[in-house]
């Protein structure tokens, strides 16, 4: 394989007709915050696509633009200060980012739904759980209050909440974190969305509950056939649920591919670092890897590769020139001058 072939822009590939039409195709999404330097977008030319019934995981550490991407897709970005400066998000043929607010509101909680990170604070404390689920149903469906209440009850049953009739009348503070997250899921799925965006849905929960919630989300997804974008920094969850993985760093996609490829053959130094920093059961061989430093703030963002200040392989070119996202294997892209790493043994030393 020649270098030129390898450099074939993966954005081009994305535009080529693929087997199954994507439910959501995000192209070059860029978001900027007012007040940050002109050339530093918090989300920079992010592209990915999700197919019906599939799960895409967006992985990255805090501040890498995962949540901003999700909020942009839902039309929930606080504007100002956030501003979508470029890109398209084609959902069933329509560009979400170009729709007027009224139409977007009609889609939210209907065709697209979102689950948030903090179940403890994501429910209105002054109304009962039943009221809140019912409200979302009535917003999008022309049905009677009684039918909506019945539907809400059915949703509570589907998310395995014990004694759902009783819980309908419960206030949020009477429920545990896990129960509240189940309620949030019931609310999000009440109108049978085609796309669910889950923004770190298990981060605030304790470990045993996390597993339950992930299992529940997977099962509901299997039942309904919806597509899901799961945002997380828990690679264990990724391995369990993802079909496709997008690794983001400082607002850019640094690696993208099928879950097996990413785990078996991570190509970007950042992805490799992430994989090495996951603790596992059993005898440990050597210390866990850490990635030194933190994501640079917007005003100190390097001009070249944004990971270069923390990358063990970085050289002069990495600091000065941004690497393109290149296809290094079929449907597996990485944004690194030295990908695939095995072809660049000189940097491995």
């Amino acid at each position: 394989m020649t270098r030129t072939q390898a450099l074939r822009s993966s954005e081009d590939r994305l535009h080529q007709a693929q087997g199954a039409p994507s439910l959501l195709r995000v192209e070059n999404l860029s978001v900027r915050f007012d007040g940050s330097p002109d050339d530093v977008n918090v989300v920079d030319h992010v592209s990915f696509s999700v197919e019906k019934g599939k799960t895409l995981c967006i992985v990255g550490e805090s501040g890498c633009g995962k949540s901003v991407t999700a909020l942009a897709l839902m039309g929930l970005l606080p504007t100002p200060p956030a501003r979508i400066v470029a890109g398209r998000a084609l959902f069933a043929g329509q560009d979400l980012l170009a729709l007027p607010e009224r139409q977007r509101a009609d889609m939210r909680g209907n065709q697209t739904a979102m689950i948030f990170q903090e179940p403890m604070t994501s429910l209105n404390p002054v109304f009962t759980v039943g009221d809140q689920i019912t409200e979302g149903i009535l917003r999008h469906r022309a049905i009677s209050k009684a039918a909506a209440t019945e539907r809400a009850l059915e949703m509570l049953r589907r998310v395995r909440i014990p004694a759902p009739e009783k819980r309908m009348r419960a206030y949020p503070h009477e429920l545990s974190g896990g129960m509240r997250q189940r309620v949030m899921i019931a609310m999000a799925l009440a109108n049978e969305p085609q796309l669910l965006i889950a923004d770190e849905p298990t981060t605030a929960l304790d470990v045993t509950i996390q597993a339950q919630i992930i299992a529940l989300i997977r099962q509901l997804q299997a039942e309904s056939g919806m597509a899901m974008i799961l945002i997380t920094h828990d690679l264990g969850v990724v391995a369990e649920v993802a079909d496709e993985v997008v690794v983001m760093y400082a607002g850019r996609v640094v690696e993208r591919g099928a879950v097996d490829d990413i785990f078996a053959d991570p190509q970007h130094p950042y992805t490799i670092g992430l994989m090495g920093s996951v603790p596992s059961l059993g005898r440990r061989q050597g210390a866990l890897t850490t990635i030194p430093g933190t994501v640079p703030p917007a005003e100190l963002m390097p001009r070249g590769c944004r990971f270069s200040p923390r990358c063990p392989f970085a050289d002069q070119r990495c600091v000065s020139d941004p690497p393109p996202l290149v296809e290094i294997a079929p449907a597996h892209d990485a944004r690194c001058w030295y990908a695939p790493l095995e072809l660049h043994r000189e940097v491995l030393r």
Partner: protein
Amino acid sequence: MTLAIAEDVALPKKRGRILSKFLRNRGAIFGAALVLFFVLVAIAAPLLATHDPIKPSFAAIRKAPSALYWFGTDELGRDVFSRMVIGARASLLAGVVSVAIAVLLGVPFGLISGYFGGWTDAVISRSTEAMLAIPFLIFAIALAAFLGPSLTNAMIAIGLSAMPIFVRLTRGQVLTIKAEDYVEGARAIGLPNFWIILRYILPNVLPPILVQATLTVATAIIAEASLSFLGLGQQPPNPSWGSMLNTAKNFMTQAPWMSIFPGSAIFLIVLGFNLFGDGLRDALDPREN
């Protein structure tokens, strides 16, 4: 020894917790009792009045308190007790109605200003600040003088003067609540702004507004008394505590009962509303649980 462990202990209901906390506060109970007492007096005023509060009696001018005239009589021979009982209505009405005006105008402005931000917020906030720059009572007096002397106009004047406090308070609260996850959650299920303001923002900003309203009733009662004292409120011959003090000041040494009783009544009802409001504030404060 056996240890009984209750599984699934239900959290105490929020309302029950607030009520029990309020009931443990003696000052608040005393305040609530005072307020309740005056409210009952105002309601039962016609039954309690021993004499006609308006009809002069030249045979009984400036009589000291006695078995017949419990609180004495004024310079026209009218029974001070009867006038006070009837006057309680004017005072309470002025307190409640003017605060209602202030809340009904101020809270919506605050909600809009805080929720939408931008130039709407700028216009509302700057106007509010301009109004707040004028001392409350001075503003009320100026407005009352402009509208013309009557109890209704006094209430409107007091209500408008108290409005900016509510705009500012509501706006501040909205800014906090707006950032809550459940408001974002409401947007994520596609609820329209109007609905979010009504169901998600308003109920959650209400507690501090309620406390402020209670405390402002006390201020409004003093303001009404002040306006009536200046002749801008309740018009003679109808009684109000403020206007009674106005005439009583001329007879401070000859007939001290004419000023002592209405003065004490104003003091007590204001004290009552303040204690009640403070108790409410402490009971609703989540940090002190």
